[in-house]
């Protein structure tokens, strides 16, 4: 009974379980020599299913904990029996944005980089510079924007899906460059942990973080050498 109440109060619980599982998978890959995280280092193209899996893992690991507010929002704005369905549709819309971006990145950008560590450093620079742009700030502000959702019928489902796409789009605007860094680093745990820290911090201290972004970028370039 107490457990049930906790689940009711925290409808986002299973999205956090998925996030934890994704982190475990990424960590396991990072700690296993020749694991899948190193797939792109040979310069050859990864299989599309692997690309999708990597991006899905990365999205759920890094982003699902950032979605607690919108996930709680879709649950609370839906009829009781539709709460979980609303969350599934919202997350599907959200992940679709990142999967689309992931496929584009891995087919257009990553194969060009070859063995160059400079490419990785370059993505760090782009990410740090992006932190300063008004568009980035706008995306961050809109990350938790709410929208009216229809209560029932197909319109309710479409609204949840559309809301996922909208939040995914805002989130992409805010974080595309950071995710590019992670992809350029071969979905490495050691890129994703600092990137996640940045995403957490910029929510709490958006102004203070921009200065830090430059310092972090400099440090990453040093590490890349």
């Amino acid at each position: 009974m107490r457990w049930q109440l906790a689940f009711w109060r925290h409808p986002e619980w299973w999205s956090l379980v998925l996030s934890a599982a994704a982190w475990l998978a990424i960590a396991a890959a990072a700690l296993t020599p020749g694991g899948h995280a190193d797939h792109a280092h040979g310069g050859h193209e990864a299989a599309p299913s692997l690309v999708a899996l990597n991006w899905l893992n990365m999205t759920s690991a890094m982003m699902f904990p950032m979605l607690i507010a919108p996930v709680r929002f879709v649950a609370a704005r839906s009829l009781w029996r539709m709460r979980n369905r609303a969350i599934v549709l919202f997350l599907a819309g959200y992940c679709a944005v990142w999967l689309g971006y992931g496929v584009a990145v891995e087919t257009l950008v990553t194969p060009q980089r070859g063995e160059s560590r400079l490419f990785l450093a370059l993505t760090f620079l782009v990410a740090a510079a992006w932190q300063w742009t008004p568009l980035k700030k706008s995306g961050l502000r809109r990350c938790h924007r709410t929208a009216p959702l229809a209560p029932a019928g197909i319109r309710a489902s479409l609204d949840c899906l559309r809301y996922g796409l909208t939040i995914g789009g805002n989130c992409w605007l805010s974080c595309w460059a950071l995710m590019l860094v992670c992809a350029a680093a071969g979905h490495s745990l050691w890129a994703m942990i600092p990137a996640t820290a940045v995403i957490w911090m910029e929510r709490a201290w958006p102004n203070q973080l921009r200065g830090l972004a430059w310092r972090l970028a400099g440090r990453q370039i040093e590490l890349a050498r």
Partner: protein
Amino acid sequence: MQNGKKGIRIRQDVWKLSNEDPWHPVLLWYARAVAAMQGRAITDPTSWRYQAAIHEHFPANDPLAVSGETLPSLSEQATFWTQCQHDSWFFFPFHRAYLLYFERIVAEAVRQLGGPADWALPYWNYSDATNKDARRLPPAFYASTLPDGTTNPLRIYKQTLGTETDIPRSPNANKGLDIATASDVDLSCLLKPQFASSSIGGQVGFGGPRTWFNHNNGHAGACESRPHGTMHVAVGGPKGWMSSSFTTAGLDPLFWVHHCNIDRLWEVWLRRSANANPGEPGWRSILTMYFHDADGKAVGVKSEQLADTTAPLLGYEYEDVSDPFPGVVTPAAPDPGAVPEMVGATSAPIVLGASRVTVQFATTAPLGPAAKSPSPSVHLNLENITAAEGPTESYLVYVNLPAGIGPEDRPDLEAGIIPLFGVVEASREDRGHRGDGLHYSIDVTSLLRTAEWNPNSLQVTFVPHERPGVDRAGVGVKTVTVGRVSLYYS
């Protein structure tokens, strides 16, 4: 002038002072200090414009902006400007600290001008049922001149460029006529048993929803809606500084006596039965709010330091914190962990204009934890209320008002009011606003307990709120869109 405990300033009732003498020393020294502060450059933290910018600064909306003027550095602006906390449980502590440091700056200006050492901000109790003038401005706020014949800065803003403009207010305000209705000054927020509420709505507390630093996103608390929001809009009218924009609100000297009353209501609420401030660290100590003291030095404060007005840091008391509802028992506080459950909603946006609008939607019985509650509370949720441009006006909300029956014939069906303070800014994605509009929750538990309600459907009627002296058509009031209306059990 003040007779409190040693070292404690007394914040007095502005109408009582005014009835003693329209230019009571507290008001006269306020006016002189305001003039002094208006003469300071915006880069000076103790200047009038800097103090208003703490609430919000948006250059395009600043009626006093001078092109090419020097502003504080961007990092200073990021720390001290556009900080006001709305739709949040930080609404009360933020505004208490904001008022405190403003009061110290004014008091210092009063001292420098040769006034008394114990000047304290007066409060405007517009809900005072014993005062027939309660809903009018005290004359000192609309007189054209001070007793010595100089311009009255409580009415007229003397711009730095030397040109003079009237402070835009509701048409009746500067005529000394009523500006608000009884509904605007209703104090039923004091009957809320809990301070905090869910950030998603479906319930409402006296103080506001549990949030992180929140400029203006989400649901308003009960007192923040009414009388705070309603009186902002009543003073400003459709176009005035205090109503139309967070940026200009603090430029009107009335803003401070209005907020002083809101701060007093927090004290009144705390004295009622078992009411208490939140105990969670998320409210007490996580957020530090930054201001400048009278000497221009930066200071940081947390909510927990602001709970006791007689503590050395604050050092004030109110002349009157008596309960306007003596003998009325506050209902038992709901379970703070209660899960609000939506049982029905509209499925298309509702456009509100100059005439009455009614919507109807299907509702069901709750299926989740609220179904097990012996006496669930029922709330109307008004979500994503936006307006592309102003001026806008407020709406009264009625439930199950029969068609063909005038709202004035069934005041018992009035659920509440949506004041729409700051709606245009909340609809614009910028300066800490995420752009999804305003949100209100209105408790309709007792209203729906009547036999008239068929629990399978609900009718909600929006009635344009007519305030005295306001010509809606004449000022071209614009439409407002309500994203969704829903019903919640919790």
